[in-house]
């Protein structure tokens, strides 16, 4: 089989991301498949392949969406497929999906700029204080901020509303790490703890003006609690049957799903340290 892996130049900047890409390639080749990296300019060559694996950042606004949709239409097996990209890239749509499917998650509201005192009071009454404000398109924590009072909420939301018609405001859920549940074809593929660095509240935090990432601790996938597995699989089934990474907080009040990502990061020496067969399993999903 011929597998195209859609990447952009930045996917090769970080050594462990680059090494993971090379592991995908060597794994596919050792299984008897062709595995080629393709870039934006190769989009029209998609019909030459049997399967497409997207590792460039996905978003309905990006080239990755076009690649994914063209591949789907040409009959290729596609990870990440267009529907998964559309659903997972947008936190307003995820908010809706969580509500509809009763996914345990932080209490959460859509905000479109109603600054009446009544609405502001009701936000803090419903969600408590502080609250977390996000734009639908945030990624790498780029547009996620905490507001500890009305003034901060107004400031942050006004800034975000300049670029988006809707925002998501959530209850703040405290934790020391996020579970990252890697899912492939509605089965658990890997399990990690994405730790929150000391002094921050996000996995990627700005501390004293500097970006700091917390540690990644891989955990055997078989050790996942039945409840977390259940929540994760039910949610992934609502999205599709591709490759996903769920972020889930564990609290006294049970698990709270923060989000489901398509295109989850897989870095050499991070997600793959315990369950080392994830490359093989993904290639298998692409060719079968």
């Amino acid at each position, binding site marked *: 089989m011929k597998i195209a892996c859609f990447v952009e130049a930045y996917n090769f900047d970080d050594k462990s991301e680059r090494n993971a890409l090379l592991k995908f390639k060597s794994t596919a080749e050792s299984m008897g498949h062709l595995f080629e990296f393709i870039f934006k300019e190769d989009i029209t060559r998609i019909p030459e392949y049997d399967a497409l694996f997207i590792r460039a950042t996905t978003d309905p606004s*990006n*080239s990755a969406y*076009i690649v994914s949709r063209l591949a789907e239409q040409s009959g290729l097996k596609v990870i990440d497929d*267009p529907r998964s990209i559309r659903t997972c890239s947008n936190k307003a749509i995820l908010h*809706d999906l969580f509500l509809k499917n009763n996914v345990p998650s932080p209490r959460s509201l859509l905000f479109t700029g109603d600054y009446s005192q009544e609405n502001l009071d009701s936000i803090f009454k419903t969600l408590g204080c502080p609250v977390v404000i996000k734009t639908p398109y945030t990624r790498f924590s780029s547009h996620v901020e905490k507001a500890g009072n009305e003034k901060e909420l107004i400031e942050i939301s006004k800034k975000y509303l300049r670029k988006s*018609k809707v925002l998501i405001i959530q209850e703040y859920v405290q934790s020391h790490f996020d579970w990252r549940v890697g899912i492939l074809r509605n089965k658990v593929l890997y399990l990690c703890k994405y730790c929150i660095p000391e002094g921050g509240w996000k996995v990627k935090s700005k501390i004293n003006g500097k970006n700091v990432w917390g540690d990644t601790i891989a955990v055997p996938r078989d050790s996942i609690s039945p409840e977390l597995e259940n929540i994760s699989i039910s949610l992934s089934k609502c999205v599709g049957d591709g490759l996903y990474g769920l972020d889930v907080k564990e609290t006294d009040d049970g698990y709270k799903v923060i989000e489901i990502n398509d295109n989850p990061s897989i870095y050499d020496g991070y997600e793959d340290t315990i369950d080392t067969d994830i490359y093989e399993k993904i290639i298998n999903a692409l060719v079968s």
Partner: protein
Amino acid sequence: MIIVSEDEDESDSSPLLFLRQPVHDSVLNINHDYRYLRMGYYVSAHAETYGVEVTPDCTEIMDAYRNPLLIEKARRYGLPTNGYRLVTKPKDDLSTPVMLLAVNPFTNNSMKIVKSGSKLPGMIKKMSMDSRFPVSLHPVRGEVLEIIQMFGESSNDETSEFARRFFEIFNIPICKLIVQIDDGNVILNHCEPALRKEVKWDIVHEKVHKIKQSI
């Protein structure tokens, strides 16, 4: 069927109210702008989350609004196009006159026509935002026209049959189409949001009224 619109008299719900409620019925989403991250898009996404039929659905929106997807779909259904070429940087073998369409998140009023070869590299650099996004290039052979398509009707008589076929294939209730008239043939180049004031709302109203009566 629920009609969701800000502008249509027979609308059952505004987009904003619609987003806050569960949906149990099929949806006709009428908007002059279905761009990703806009209200028109969210209405369709909300309907899809609830598993109901919606016109247009998000796949249809994206297929129409992203230029390479538009042209590929048109080709598949036999709607005439001049083809496209995607580039992210200037190339030696590009000919003019050429129409440039940005394939980036901000595709509104993005069409540029370049007549002289010497201006092309600069324009590609600008529209690709320094090679970050591809630019779709279409040859210019005929007269370039912008029309407003409303439920298969065109704002321009010469293109009425074309608008009918476009709506049949793409299922987008309202949009602006950039076309070329070449030797009497209408050729599709681009689809983008219409401005609210460009839409003939009386035509939309008549169509919606008919749809409502037929169910």
